[in-house]
Protein backbone atom coordinates (compact mmCIF):
# COMPACT_ATOMS: atom_id res chain seq x y z
CA UNK A 1 0.00 0.00 0.00
CA UNK A 2 1.16 3.51 -0.74
CA UNK A 3 2.18 5.75 2.13
CA UNK A 4 3.00 9.44 2.42
CA UNK A 5 5.62 10.87 4.78
CA UNK A 6 5.14 14.03 6.89
CA UNK A 7 7.42 16.05 4.61
CA UNK A 8 5.28 15.16 1.56
CA UNK A 9 1.93 15.99 3.17
CA UNK A 10 0.58 19.12 1.56
CA UNK A 11 -2.77 20.81 1.54
CA UNK A 12 -5.06 18.44 -0.39
CA UNK A 13 -3.09 15.22 0.21
CA UNK A 14 -5.58 12.39 0.86
CA UNK A 15 -4.69 10.15 3.78
CA UNK A 16 -6.19 7.27 5.74
CA UNK A 17 -6.16 7.77 9.53
CA UNK A 18 -7.77 5.23 11.90
CA UNK A 19 -9.57 3.78 8.87
CA UNK A 20 -11.18 7.07 7.84
CA UNK A 21 -10.39 9.15 4.73
CA UNK A 22 -9.04 12.66 5.34
CA UNK A 23 -7.73 15.55 3.30
CA UNK A 24 -4.70 17.46 4.65
CA UNK A 25 -5.50 21.11 5.39
CA UNK A 26 -2.28 22.33 7.01
CA UNK A 27 1.11 20.97 8.06
CA UNK A 28 3.19 22.76 10.71
CA UNK A 29 6.81 21.68 11.25
CA UNK A 30 8.28 22.22 14.72
CA UNK A 31 11.68 21.37 16.09
CA UNK A 32 13.40 22.18 19.34
CA UNK A 33 17.02 23.12 18.48
CA UNK A 34 18.43 19.79 19.49
CA UNK A 35 15.34 17.68 19.97
CA UNK A 36 12.82 15.51 18.16
CA UNK A 37 11.13 17.27 15.24
CA UNK A 38 7.36 16.92 14.86
CA UNK A 39 4.73 17.79 12.30
CA UNK A 40 1.28 18.84 13.48
CA UNK A 41 -1.08 18.01 10.63
CA UNK A 42 -4.56 19.51 10.37
CA UNK A 43 -6.86 17.09 8.53
CA UNK A 44 -10.49 17.26 7.37
CA UNK A 45 -12.60 14.12 7.45
CA UNK A 46 -13.96 13.59 3.93
CA UNK A 47 -17.08 11.84 5.23
CA UNK A 48 -18.29 14.34 7.81
CA UNK A 49 -16.15 17.45 7.26
CA UNK A 50 -14.83 17.45 10.83
CA UNK A 51 -11.36 18.96 11.20
CA UNK A 52 -8.81 17.64 13.68
CA UNK A 53 -5.11 17.94 14.43
CA UNK A 54 -2.64 15.10 14.83
CA UNK A 55 1.02 15.35 15.75
CA UNK A 56 3.53 12.94 14.21
CA UNK A 57 7.28 12.52 14.48
CA UNK A 58 8.84 14.07 11.40
CA UNK A 59 9.46 11.34 8.85
CA UNK A 60 6.55 9.16 10.03
CA UNK A 61 3.93 8.35 7.44
CA UNK A 62 0.26 7.65 6.87
CA UNK A 63 -1.37 5.39 4.34
CA UNK A 64 -2.60 7.20 1.24
CA UNK A 65 -6.40 7.10 0.91
CA UNK A 66 -7.69 5.72 -2.40
CA UNK A 67 -9.60 8.84 -3.39
CA UNK A 68 -10.61 9.65 -6.95
CA UNK A 69 -12.62 12.56 -8.28
CA UNK A 70 -14.71 12.22 -11.44
CA UNK A 71 -16.99 14.63 -13.32
CA UNK A 72 -20.45 13.03 -13.55
CA UNK A 73 -23.83 14.14 -14.73
CA UNK A 74 -26.71 14.19 -12.24
CA UNK A 75 -29.66 12.19 -13.58
CA UNK A 76 -32.39 12.03 -10.94
CA UNK A 77 -33.18 11.32 -7.30
CA UNK A 78 -35.47 8.49 -6.30
CA UNK A 79 -35.90 9.90 -2.79
CA UNK A 80 -33.32 7.58 -1.27
CA UNK A 81 -30.42 7.77 -3.75
CA UNK A 82 -29.15 10.33 -6.18
CA UNK A 83 -28.19 8.80 -9.52
CA UNK A 84 -25.19 9.97 -11.59
CA UNK A 85 -23.77 8.97 -14.94
CA UNK A 86 -20.22 9.09 -16.23
CA UNK A 87 -20.66 10.95 -19.55
CA UNK A 88 -17.67 9.16 -21.07
CA UNK A 89 -18.40 5.55 -20.11
CA UNK A 90 -22.18 5.90 -19.45
CA UNK A 91 -21.53 3.99 -16.23
CA UNK A 92 -24.05 4.89 -13.53
CA UNK A 93 -23.54 5.21 -9.76
CA UNK A 94 -25.81 6.11 -6.88
CA UNK A 95 -24.91 8.41 -4.00
CA UNK A 96 -26.56 8.26 -0.57
CA UNK A 97 -27.84 11.07 1.59
CA UNK A 98 -24.59 11.80 3.48
CA UNK A 99 -22.66 12.22 0.23
CA UNK A 100 -25.29 14.71 -0.93
CA UNK A 101 -25.39 16.97 2.16
CA UNK A 102 -23.92 20.01 0.42
CA UNK A 103 -24.98 19.42 -3.17
CA UNK A 104 -28.58 18.16 -3.05
CA UNK A 105 -30.25 21.54 -2.60
CA UNK A 106 -28.69 22.94 -5.80
CA UNK A 107 -29.51 20.14 -8.24
CA UNK A 108 -32.52 19.68 -10.51
CA UNK A 109 -31.02 17.45 -13.23
CA UNK A 110 -28.34 17.24 -15.91
CA UNK A 111 -25.79 19.30 -13.95
CA UNK A 112 -22.17 18.20 -14.19
CA UNK A 113 -20.98 17.49 -10.64
CA UNK A 114 -17.69 16.42 -9.10
CA UNK A 115 -18.10 13.05 -7.41
CA UNK A 116 -15.43 12.02 -4.88
CA UNK A 117 -14.97 8.25 -4.69
CA UNK A 118 -13.32 6.44 -1.81
CA UNK A 119 -12.46 2.83 -2.67
CA UNK A 120 -14.88 3.16 -5.58
CA UNK A 121 -17.88 4.33 -3.47
CA UNK A 122 -19.21 7.92 -3.78
CA UNK A 123 -18.13 9.80 -0.66
CA UNK A 124 -19.26 13.30 -1.49
CA UNK A 125 -20.73 15.22 -4.38
CA UNK A 126 -19.93 18.83 -5.22
CA UNK A 127 -22.45 20.86 -7.22
CA UNK A 128 -21.25 23.07 -10.09
CA UNK A 129 -19.79 26.36 -8.79
CA UNK A 130 -22.62 28.33 -10.40
CA UNK A 131 -26.23 27.30 -10.90
CA UNK A 132 -29.11 29.11 -12.61
CA UNK A 133 -32.47 28.47 -10.94
CA UNK A 134 -35.99 29.93 -10.78
CA UNK A 135 -37.38 31.57 -7.64
CA UNK A 136 -40.51 29.72 -6.56
CA UNK A 137 -41.29 31.81 -3.53
CA UNK A 138 -40.30 35.23 -2.13
CA UNK A 139 -42.08 38.20 -0.53
CA UNK A 140 -42.83 41.15 -2.84
CA UNK A 141 -40.04 43.71 -2.52
CA UNK A 142 -40.42 47.27 -1.26
CA UNK A 143 -40.90 49.94 -3.91
CA UNK A 144 -37.94 52.05 -4.92
CA UNK A 145 -35.22 49.62 -3.89
CA UNK A 146 -32.79 49.04 -6.72
CA UNK A 147 -29.51 48.82 -4.85
CA UNK A 148 -29.60 45.27 -3.60
CA UNK A 149 -28.77 46.44 -0.07
CA UNK A 150 -30.65 44.64 2.68
CA UNK A 151 -32.27 41.77 0.84
CA UNK A 152 -34.81 39.06 1.62
CA UNK A 153 -34.93 35.26 1.57
CA UNK A 154 -36.02 33.51 -1.63
CA UNK A 155 -36.77 29.81 -2.12
CA UNK A 156 -35.41 28.33 -5.35
CA UNK A 157 -36.97 25.56 -7.42
CA UNK A 158 -34.57 23.01 -5.88
CA UNK A 159 -35.53 23.99 -2.33
CA UNK A 160 -32.39 26.02 -1.53
CA UNK A 161 -32.97 29.33 0.23
CA UNK A 162 -30.75 32.29 -0.73
CA UNK A 163 -30.78 36.00 0.07
CA UNK A 164 -31.75 38.15 -2.91
CA UNK A 165 -32.14 41.94 -3.33
CA UNK A 166 -35.59 43.32 -2.57
CA UNK A 167 -36.34 44.08 -6.24
CA UNK A 168 -36.01 40.45 -7.35
CA UNK A 169 -39.41 38.82 -7.76
CA UNK A 170 -40.99 35.39 -7.65
CA UNK A 171 -40.67 33.59 -11.00
CA UNK A 172 -37.40 35.26 -11.92
CA UNK A 173 -34.31 33.23 -12.85
CA UNK A 174 -31.18 33.91 -10.78
CA UNK A 175 -27.53 32.91 -10.78
CA UNK A 176 -26.09 31.63 -7.47
CA UNK A 177 -22.59 30.66 -6.29
CA UNK A 178 -23.03 27.24 -4.65
CA UNK A 179 -19.77 27.51 -2.66
CA UNK A 180 -20.96 30.54 -0.72
CA UNK A 181 -24.73 30.35 -1.31
CA UNK A 182 -24.54 33.93 -2.59
CA UNK A 183 -26.90 35.49 -5.14
CA UNK A 184 -24.86 36.81 -8.09
CA UNK A 185 -27.49 38.37 -10.35
CA UNK A 186 -30.59 37.90 -12.44
CA UNK A 187 -30.32 35.50 -15.36
CA UNK A 188 -33.61 36.20 -17.14
CA UNK A 189 -33.68 35.44 -20.84
Amino acid at each position, binding site marked *: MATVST*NEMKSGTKVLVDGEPYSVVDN*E*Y*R*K*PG*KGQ*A*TNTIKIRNLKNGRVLEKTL*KSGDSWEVADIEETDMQFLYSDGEFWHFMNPASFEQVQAGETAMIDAAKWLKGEESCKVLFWNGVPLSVTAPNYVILAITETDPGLRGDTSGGGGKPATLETGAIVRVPLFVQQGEIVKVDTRTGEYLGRANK
Partner: protein
Amino acid sequence: MSWRPSATIETLKARAEQNGSVRAFFAARGVLEVETPILSAHATVDRHIDSFSTAGGNGGDAQWLQTSPEFAMKRLLAAGSGAIYQIARVFRVEELGRHHNTEFSMLEWYRPGYSMFDLMDEVEALVRTLAATGVGSFERLSYRQAFQRHAGVDAFTAEGDELRDAALRLGLIGAGDFAGETERDFWLDLIMSLHVSPRLGQATPSFLHDFPASMAALSRVRNGQGDEPAVAERFELFWHGLELANGFHELTDADEQRRRFEADQAWRRGHGKVVPPYDAHLIDALAQGLPDCSGVALGLDRLLMLKLGLPELAATLAFDRSRA
Protein backbone atom coordinates in the same frame (compact mmCIF):
# COMPACT_ATOMS: atom_id res chain seq x y z
CA MET B 1 6.86 34.16 -9.58
CA SER B 2 9.64 31.93 -8.44
CA TRP B 3 12.57 33.86 -9.92
CA ARG B 4 11.78 36.72 -7.57
CA PRO B 5 13.37 37.04 -4.10
CA SER B 6 11.39 35.87 -1.06
CA ALA B 7 12.52 38.96 0.90
CA THR B 8 11.90 42.59 -0.05
CA ILE B 9 14.91 44.75 -0.87
CA GLU B 10 14.11 46.78 2.27
CA THR B 11 14.44 43.60 4.37
CA LEU B 12 17.75 42.76 2.71
CA LYS B 13 19.02 46.21 3.71
CA ALA B 14 17.94 45.57 7.30
CA ARG B 15 19.73 42.22 7.11
CA ALA B 16 22.99 43.83 5.95
CA GLU B 17 22.64 46.40 8.72
CA GLN B 18 22.15 43.65 11.30
CA ASN B 19 25.33 41.88 10.16
CA GLY B 20 27.18 45.21 10.39
CA SER B 21 25.91 45.73 13.95
CA VAL B 22 27.03 42.23 14.95
CA ARG B 23 30.54 42.94 13.69
CA ALA B 24 30.65 46.33 15.42
CA PHE B 25 29.43 44.76 18.68
CA PHE B 26 32.20 42.16 18.74
CA ALA B 27 34.91 44.50 17.43
CA ALA B 28 34.18 46.85 20.35
CA ARG B 29 34.53 43.90 22.76
CA GLY B 30 37.75 42.60 21.25
CA VAL B 31 36.27 39.33 19.96
CA LEU B 32 38.00 37.99 16.83
CA GLU B 33 36.00 37.16 13.69
CA VAL B 34 36.99 33.79 12.18
CA GLU B 35 36.01 31.65 9.19
CA THR B 36 36.15 27.85 9.28
CA PRO B 37 35.36 25.16 6.65
CA ILE B 38 31.75 24.68 5.59
CA LEU B 39 32.60 21.30 4.06
CA SER B 40 34.28 18.76 6.34
CA ALA B 41 35.33 15.12 6.51
CA HIS B 42 33.15 14.65 9.63
CA ALA B 43 29.80 15.76 10.90
CA THR B 44 27.67 16.13 13.97
CA VAL B 45 26.30 12.90 15.40
CA ASP B 46 23.57 14.72 17.36
CA ARG B 47 20.53 12.41 17.51
CA HIS B 48 18.14 14.90 15.95
CA ILE B 49 20.32 16.89 13.56
CA ASP B 50 20.91 15.39 10.11
CA SER B 51 23.75 16.56 7.84
CA PHE B 52 23.94 16.77 4.06
CA SER B 53 26.73 14.77 2.50
CA THR B 54 28.34 15.15 -0.89
CA ALA B 55 30.31 12.77 -3.05
CA GLY B 56 33.98 13.17 -2.22
CA GLY B 57 35.18 13.89 -5.76
CA ASN B 58 38.18 12.13 -7.31
CA GLY B 59 37.04 8.96 -5.57
CA GLY B 60 37.58 10.48 -2.13
CA ASP B 61 35.42 9.88 0.92
CA ALA B 62 32.11 11.66 1.36
CA GLN B 63 32.25 15.22 2.69
CA TRP B 64 29.68 16.76 5.01
CA LEU B 65 28.12 20.22 5.07
CA GLN B 66 28.32 21.77 8.53
CA THR B 67 25.20 22.02 10.71
CA SER B 68 27.12 24.39 13.02
CA PRO B 69 30.74 25.63 13.07
CA GLU B 70 31.25 24.47 16.67
CA PHE B 71 33.87 21.74 16.21
CA ALA B 72 36.26 23.84 14.12
CA MET B 73 35.83 26.84 16.43
CA LYS B 74 36.67 24.75 19.51
CA ARG B 75 39.81 23.55 17.76
CA LEU B 76 40.79 27.22 17.32
CA LEU B 77 40.14 27.83 21.02
CA ALA B 78 42.36 24.88 21.93
CA ALA B 79 45.04 26.39 19.66
CA GLY B 80 44.95 29.59 21.71
CA SER B 81 42.69 31.89 19.65
CA GLY B 82 41.03 33.55 22.63
CA ALA B 83 37.46 34.85 22.25
CA ILE B 84 36.12 34.26 18.71
CA TYR B 85 32.91 34.66 16.70
CA GLN B 86 31.66 33.64 13.27
CA ILE B 87 28.67 34.41 11.06
CA ALA B 88 28.23 31.01 9.40
CA ARG B 89 25.98 29.42 6.82
CA VAL B 90 24.76 26.09 8.14
CA PHE B 91 22.69 23.30 6.57
CA ARG B 92 20.25 20.80 8.09
CA VAL B 93 18.39 18.05 6.26
CA GLU B 94 14.59 18.19 6.35
CA GLU B 95 14.40 21.36 8.41
CA LEU B 96 11.79 23.26 6.48
CA GLY B 97 8.74 25.16 7.71
CA ARG B 98 7.45 28.57 8.75
CA HIS B 99 10.38 29.03 11.13
CA HIS B 100 12.90 26.74 9.45
CA ASN B 101 14.90 26.79 6.24
CA THR B 102 17.31 24.03 5.24
CA GLU B 103 20.12 26.60 4.90
CA PHE B 104 20.33 29.43 7.43
CA SER B 105 22.65 31.96 9.08
CA MET B 106 24.06 31.19 12.48
CA LEU B 107 26.05 33.54 14.67
CA GLU B 108 28.28 31.49 16.93
CA TRP B 109 30.71 32.79 19.55
CA TYR B 110 32.93 31.54 22.37
CA ARG B 111 34.16 33.25 25.50
CA PRO B 112 37.05 31.74 27.48
CA GLY B 113 36.59 32.23 31.23
CA TYR B 114 32.85 32.94 30.96
CA SER B 115 30.27 30.96 32.94
CA MET B 116 26.93 30.12 31.31
CA PHE B 117 25.40 33.09 33.17
CA ASP B 118 28.16 35.49 32.05
CA LEU B 119 27.46 34.52 28.46
CA MET B 120 23.70 34.96 28.96
CA ASP B 121 24.48 38.57 29.98
CA GLU B 122 26.36 39.08 26.72
CA VAL B 123 23.60 37.47 24.62
CA GLU B 124 21.15 39.83 26.28
CA ALA B 125 23.38 42.85 25.49
CA LEU B 126 23.70 41.78 21.85
CA VAL B 127 20.00 41.04 21.30
CA ARG B 128 19.14 44.31 22.99
CA THR B 129 21.53 46.16 20.64
CA LEU B 130 20.26 44.40 17.51
CA ALA B 131 16.54 44.13 18.05
CA ALA B 132 15.04 44.39 21.50
CA THR B 133 15.67 48.06 22.18
CA GLY B 134 13.31 49.37 24.85
CA VAL B 135 12.46 45.90 26.19
CA GLY B 136 12.80 45.26 29.94
CA SER B 137 15.27 42.83 31.56
CA PHE B 138 15.21 39.40 29.98
CA GLU B 139 13.51 36.75 32.09
CA ARG B 140 15.55 33.78 33.38
CA LEU B 141 14.01 30.51 34.43
CA SER B 142 15.20 26.94 34.68
CA TYR B 143 13.93 24.18 32.40
CA ARG B 144 12.36 22.60 35.47
CA GLN B 145 10.56 25.83 36.48
CA ALA B 146 9.25 26.31 32.95
CA PHE B 147 7.72 22.82 32.91
CA GLN B 148 6.24 23.26 36.38
CA ARG B 149 4.75 26.62 35.47
CA HIS B 150 3.36 25.83 32.02
CA ALA B 151 2.86 22.05 31.96
CA GLY B 152 2.36 21.20 35.65
CA VAL B 153 4.88 18.38 35.56
CA ASP B 154 8.40 17.84 36.95
CA ALA B 155 10.66 17.49 33.92
CA PHE B 156 13.44 15.98 36.02
CA THR B 157 11.64 13.28 37.99
CA ALA B 158 8.53 12.35 35.98
CA GLU B 159 8.67 8.96 34.23
CA GLY B 160 7.79 8.53 30.56
CA ASP B 161 4.21 7.48 31.46
CA GLU B 162 3.64 10.60 33.57
CA LEU B 163 4.92 12.80 30.77
CA ARG B 164 2.59 11.04 28.32
CA ASP B 165 -0.33 11.66 30.72
CA ALA B 166 0.64 15.33 30.87
CA ALA B 167 0.70 15.54 27.05
CA LEU B 168 -2.74 13.90 26.97
CA ARG B 169 -4.12 16.22 29.68
CA LEU B 170 -2.78 19.26 27.80
CA GLY B 171 -4.51 18.05 24.63
CA LEU B 172 -1.27 17.67 22.69
CA ILE B 173 -1.95 14.07 21.66
CA GLY B 174 -4.86 11.66 21.28
CA ALA B 175 -5.30 8.60 23.53
CA GLY B 176 -3.63 6.11 21.16
CA ASP B 177 -0.90 8.35 19.77
CA PHE B 178 2.76 7.30 20.10
CA ALA B 179 1.81 4.01 21.75
CA GLY B 180 4.91 2.28 23.09
CA GLU B 181 6.97 5.46 23.14
CA THR B 182 8.70 5.41 26.53
CA GLU B 183 11.76 7.60 25.96
CA ARG B 184 11.57 10.47 28.46
CA ASP B 185 13.39 12.87 26.17
CA PHE B 186 10.86 12.28 23.38
CA TRP B 187 8.02 13.35 25.66
CA LEU B 188 9.95 16.31 27.04
CA ASP B 189 10.69 17.52 23.48
CA LEU B 190 7.04 17.08 22.50
CA ILE B 191 5.70 19.03 25.49
CA MET B 192 8.41 21.65 25.04
CA SER B 193 7.79 22.31 21.36
CA LEU B 194 3.98 22.07 21.36
CA HIS B 195 3.14 23.61 24.71
CA VAL B 196 5.92 25.19 26.80
CA SER B 197 8.04 27.07 24.25
CA PRO B 198 5.05 28.86 22.62
CA ARG B 199 4.47 30.43 26.07
CA LEU B 200 8.06 31.58 26.60
CA GLY B 201 9.44 35.06 25.97
CA GLN B 202 6.08 36.73 25.45
CA ALA B 203 6.49 39.82 27.67
CA THR B 204 10.29 40.01 27.38
CA PRO B 205 12.79 37.59 25.85
CA SER B 206 13.29 34.64 28.18
CA PHE B 207 16.33 32.48 28.97
CA LEU B 208 15.74 28.84 29.79
CA HIS B 209 18.71 27.26 31.60
CA ASP B 210 19.78 24.09 33.43
CA PHE B 211 18.52 21.37 31.11
CA PRO B 212 18.08 17.68 32.02
CA ALA B 213 21.47 15.92 31.94
CA SER B 214 20.16 13.65 29.15
CA MET B 215 19.96 16.78 26.93
CA ALA B 216 23.48 17.98 27.68
CA ALA B 217 24.65 17.71 24.05
CA LEU B 218 28.09 19.40 24.25
CA SER B 219 27.61 21.07 27.63
CA ARG B 220 28.99 20.31 31.05
CA VAL B 221 26.90 18.40 33.53
CA ARG B 222 26.83 19.81 37.07
CA ASN B 223 26.14 17.29 39.82
CA GLY B 224 23.23 18.17 42.10
CA GLN B 225 23.51 18.85 45.82
CA GLY B 226 22.27 15.95 47.95
CA ASP B 227 19.20 14.39 46.32
CA GLU B 228 18.96 17.04 43.61
CA PRO B 229 19.33 15.69 40.07
CA ALA B 230 22.33 16.61 37.91
CA VAL B 231 21.74 19.38 35.37
CA ALA B 232 23.30 20.25 32.03
CA GLU B 233 24.82 23.75 31.95
CA ARG B 234 22.95 24.60 28.80
CA PHE B 235 20.65 27.53 28.00
CA GLU B 236 18.30 28.65 25.27
CA LEU B 237 16.81 32.05 24.52
CA PHE B 238 13.13 32.37 23.53
CA TRP B 239 11.34 35.40 22.19
CA HIS B 240 7.66 35.32 21.24
CA GLY B 241 7.73 31.53 21.64
CA LEU B 242 10.55 31.10 19.15
CA GLU B 243 13.95 29.62 20.02
CA LEU B 244 16.65 32.14 19.12
CA ALA B 245 19.83 30.82 20.70
CA ASN B 246 21.35 27.75 22.32
CA GLY B 247 24.42 27.98 24.57
CA PHE B 248 26.64 25.75 26.65
CA HIS B 249 29.17 25.92 29.40
CA GLU B 250 31.37 23.82 27.15
CA LEU B 251 32.42 20.29 27.92
CA THR B 252 36.24 20.14 27.99
CA ASP B 253 36.70 16.49 28.97
CA ALA B 254 37.97 14.54 25.93
CA ASP B 255 36.98 11.09 27.26
CA GLU B 256 33.48 12.22 28.19
CA GLN B 257 33.13 13.87 24.77
CA ARG B 258 34.13 10.64 23.01
CA ARG B 259 31.67 8.65 25.14
CA ARG B 260 28.83 11.03 24.19
CA PHE B 261 29.71 10.91 20.48
CA GLU B 262 29.77 7.11 20.57
CA ALA B 263 26.49 6.92 22.52
CA ASP B 264 24.85 9.23 19.96
CA GLN B 265 26.21 7.16 17.09
CA ALA B 266 24.82 4.00 18.72
CA TRP B 267 21.42 5.69 19.16
CA ARG B 268 21.39 6.75 15.51
CA ARG B 269 22.36 3.25 14.39
CA GLY B 270 19.59 1.75 16.55
CA HIS B 271 17.05 4.16 15.04
CA GLY B 272 18.07 3.39 11.45
CA LYS B 273 19.57 6.83 10.85
CA VAL B 274 22.71 7.77 8.94
CA VAL B 275 25.76 7.51 11.22
CA PRO B 276 28.42 10.04 10.16
CA PRO B 277 32.00 9.88 11.49
CA TYR B 278 32.43 12.21 14.48
CA ASP B 279 35.21 14.80 14.54
CA ALA B 280 38.22 12.97 15.97
CA HIS B 281 40.25 16.20 15.66
CA LEU B 282 37.96 17.73 18.27
CA ILE B 283 38.71 14.89 20.69
CA ASP B 284 42.45 15.46 20.13
CA ALA B 285 42.00 19.20 20.68
CA LEU B 286 40.11 18.59 23.95
CA ALA B 287 42.86 16.20 25.05
CA GLN B 288 45.41 18.93 24.35
CA GLY B 289 43.29 21.34 26.44
CA LEU B 290 40.26 23.48 25.68
CA PRO B 291 40.15 26.55 27.94
CA ASP B 292 37.21 26.69 30.33
CA CYS B 293 34.66 28.57 28.22
CA SER B 294 31.04 29.12 27.27
CA GLY B 295 29.73 29.26 23.72
CA VAL B 296 26.44 30.06 22.03
CA ALA B 297 24.77 29.87 18.62
CA LEU B 298 22.10 32.39 17.62
CA GLY B 299 19.75 32.27 14.61
CA LEU B 300 20.21 35.58 12.79
CA ASP B 301 17.32 35.02 10.35
CA ARG B 302 14.87 34.43 13.20
CA LEU B 303 16.09 37.48 15.09
CA LEU B 304 15.58 39.64 11.99
CA MET B 305 12.14 38.12 11.43
CA LEU B 306 11.02 39.03 14.97
CA LYS B 307 12.61 42.45 14.85
CA LEU B 308 10.81 43.35 11.62
CA GLY B 309 7.57 41.58 12.60
CA LEU B 310 7.65 39.34 9.51
CA PRO B 311 5.26 36.37 9.34
CA GLU B 312 7.77 33.71 8.26
CA LEU B 313 11.47 33.03 7.99
CA ALA B 314 11.35 33.00 4.17
CA ALA B 315 10.60 36.74 4.25
CA THR B 316 14.10 37.37 5.69
CA LEU B 317 15.93 35.32 3.04
CA ALA B 318 16.95 36.55 -0.40
CA PHE B 319 15.81 33.19 -1.74
CA ASP B 320 14.22 30.57 0.49
CA ARG B 321 14.52 26.83 -0.19
CA SER B 322 11.61 26.80 -2.64
CA ARG B 323 13.39 29.38 -4.82
CA ALA B 324 17.00 28.40 -4.18
